[in-house]
């Protein structure tokens, strides 16, 4: 069984469009959407949810007004500025460290576990799909990513699947690191812009930092062939192979609007290139 993650550094370069097409092209696999705070892959895979689970993670401090003597000890110790002058806790600032509850001489502060989101096991036309929804303004997205990856891996092992294909989040922080760890290959999707190059370079360094083999795809490569050439040269320098170059193609947005993967929607140059990319990856 092989695990492949699609990441990008910069958002909006086409991760989910590529992942959705891989769902249609790869056989005998499980799909995972690890962009848990803005998940979109379900809009292409149209899952039927089979199992729904609460994701409990982290804590929030609650001050009991009856026990609180307003001595003020909790306010200066909070490094996150979450305890307000009126002895209430601002939920979005509280990181659940519980220092206030330890320091309170009157036992007036208790910690409550957060329901930080939900995760799902679904059926799709493309096989099993594990996805999640982080609660609005919640934290611990990295832990939720780790959770659904573990579930997907267990299903893959049980059903003797060949691939775990992961649609990753943008950025280089905690959910990206959780999406990357232990995969066999990270496919970086970027675009021929200076931002795309800058961000791909950073996420590539993150992958290198965790010893993950990397391949790169340039999406909409013909929007700026000079920057595409720069990206290719940059990849050569680092011994990273360019798995493909997808042309700018208005059919991609049309397919998206219809909720379909490009390889299934219509024969078009972008779909052809994605097929080539998959042939090279498998």
């Amino acid at each position, binding site marked *: 069984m092989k695990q492949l993650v699609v990441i990008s*550094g910069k*958002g909006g*370069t086409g991760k989910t469009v590529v992942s959705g097409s891989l769902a249609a092209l790869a056989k005998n696999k499980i799909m995972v959407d690890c962009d848990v705070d803005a998940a979109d892959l379900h809009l292409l895979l149209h899952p039927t949810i089979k199992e729904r689970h609460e994701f409990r993670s982290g804590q929030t401090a609650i001050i009991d007004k009856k026990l609180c003597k307003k001595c003020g000890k909790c306010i200066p110790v909070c490094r996150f500025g979450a305890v307000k002058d009126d002895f209430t806790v601002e939920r979005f600032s509280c990181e659940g460290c519980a220092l206030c509850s330890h320091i309170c001489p009157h036992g007036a502060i208790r910690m409550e576990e957060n329901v930080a989101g939900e995760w799902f096991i679904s059926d799709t036309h493309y096989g099993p799909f594990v996805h999640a929804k982080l609660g609005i303004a919640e934290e611990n*997205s990295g832990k939720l990513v780790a959770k659904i990856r573990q579930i997907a891996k267990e299903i893959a092992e049980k059903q003797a699947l060949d691939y775990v294909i992961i649609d990753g989040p943008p950025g280089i*922080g905690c959910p990206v690191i959780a999406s990357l760890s232990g995969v066999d290959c990270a496919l970086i999707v970027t675009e021929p812009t200076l931002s795309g190059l800058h961000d791909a370079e950073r996420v590539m360094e993150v992958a290198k930092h965790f010893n993950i083999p990397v391949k790169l795809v340039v999406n909409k490569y013909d929007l700026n062939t000079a920057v595409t050439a720069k990206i290719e040269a940059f990849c050569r320098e680092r011994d990273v192979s360019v798995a493909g170059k997808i042309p700018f193609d208005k059919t991609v947005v049309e397919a998206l609007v219809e909720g379909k993967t490009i390889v299934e929607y219509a024969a078009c140059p972008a779909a052809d290139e994605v097929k080539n990319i998959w042939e090279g990856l498998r």
Partner: protein
Amino acid sequence: MIISIASGKGGTGKTTVAVNLALSLKNIQLLDCDVEEPNAHLFIKPRIKEEVKACIPVPEVDETKCNYCGKCREVCAYHAIAVLPGSEGRKGSVLIFPHLCHGCGACSLLCPQSAIKEVNKEIGVIEIGEKDHMQFVHGRLNIGEAMSPPLIRQVKKYINPTRTVIIDAPPGTSCPVITAVKGSDFCVLVTEPTPFGLNDLILAVEVLRKLQIPFGVVINRSDIGDGKVDSYCQEENIPILMKIPFSREIAVSYSEGVPIVKKDNSYQDKFINLYLNICAIKNEAISRH
């Protein structure tokens, strides 16, 4: 006034809006709070005058004072400390995992032996600069660091209240975004008229309603996709502040790191208009209260 530019979905044009808005107005401070992947500097090309290391406090144990009681492990909510008690003839030991540490200070404050002090661990850098009359600050998270919110908070300490502050936020709906937009007077949500854009816009709207920050929407590449973002905004009574049609000129100019207002100054009026729309909504909200 502090205006943050955010979006649920990545790549919708946050940086385009932040940079061009900043260049169209006077007396501006631009803060790039997308510290995982900062891009605004590629367009502004600021002259960096000062570089500051951004650190978080992590514990360091003085093993001559430590008696391996395990209190620090017990109070650490993030499992960043492990304590192996000693046994006969063998010293105990304390293991610290700095990547899990949130820097809350509980271990050092609550250690009965006062054996823990905090030392600085670098998580990134903050660069402060300027371009013409614009003040510019951004943060850059170190490779391999997981936690961006502490760095975002440190970037925001440089907010200059005498200026109109524009914050370029990271994508998503979780802690980095919350940290970046919190305290803003207004938030501009940039989206695109596709099912992905709409799905993530709805999530971002929920975030801003929870945080009680007034907001409006900019629809980028407004002539591709479908009309569902428009009808969603109408149903939800969300003001559409600006529409930017897809143009190859903007796409190419973006790809080269050139702000569109520098290439075609007719865009300047459009971004000034965006600012006036924001002010009108703010004023209306104030007069209602």
